[in-house]
């Protein structure tokens, strides 16, 4: 439920940016070919969703937006700020964040940035992780 609400809040944010607006939410173009099912996004890219439909019960017509894989750009291998560096928030800063500790390394990601990029491709020591919102 929490994840759903989080996703809803991003979607509302993107709607407010007009990236995801009712106007961009057209009915999905579905192609059925030799028993395979493809959904076609706004960049005319075809996504094979046969497995999602047959195994997980996804309904092809229930996919939404289809903005294309370049519409929302991830952040890759970002620099982090440590205490004392310019831009590091004061201890009374009330920004919403997602925080995590992995490999003895603790990092925080502000939601207002995550909501614009959806994904941060990160590395904690030897662990490769994705921070998603």
């Amino acid at each position: 439920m929490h994840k759903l609400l989080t996703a809803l809040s991003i979607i509302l944010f993107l709607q407010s940016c007009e990236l995801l607006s009712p106007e961009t939410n057209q009915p999905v173009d579905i192609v059925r070919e030799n028993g395979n099912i493809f959904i076609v996004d706004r960049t005319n890219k075809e996504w094979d969703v046969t497995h999602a439909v047959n195994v997980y019960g996804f309904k092809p017509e229930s996919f939404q937006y289809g903005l294309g894989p370049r519409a929302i750009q991830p952040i890759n291998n970002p620099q982090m700020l440590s205490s004392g560096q310019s831009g590091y928030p004061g201890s009374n800063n009330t920004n919403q964040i997602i925080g995590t500790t992995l490999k003895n390394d603790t990092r925080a990601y502000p939601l207002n940035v995550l909501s614009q990029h959806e994904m941060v491709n990160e590395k904690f020591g030897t662990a490769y992780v994705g921070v998603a919102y």
Partner: protein
Amino acid sequence: VYSREIEGNILNLSASGWTYNNTFVLFDFETESMWYHLSNTDGLTCISGEYADKKLEEFNSTQTRWINWIVNNPNSKYLKYPQ
């Protein structure tokens, strides 16, 4: 927060541009497999593509405000933005 290592390979994840049930459908640039957080299932499940049915492990994370986070995590780093 999810692992992006699978079978010895490292994936670069991103939003696919699709949502399903108001949740983002993710994909990886390497194989263009589609990844989704199924309800009642931890981690990301590959719903379509080369890694179909495989999972990316989920790690603990906390959503809170910095003012609360920094009290309990005084050594926390903070995302630089813009990069």
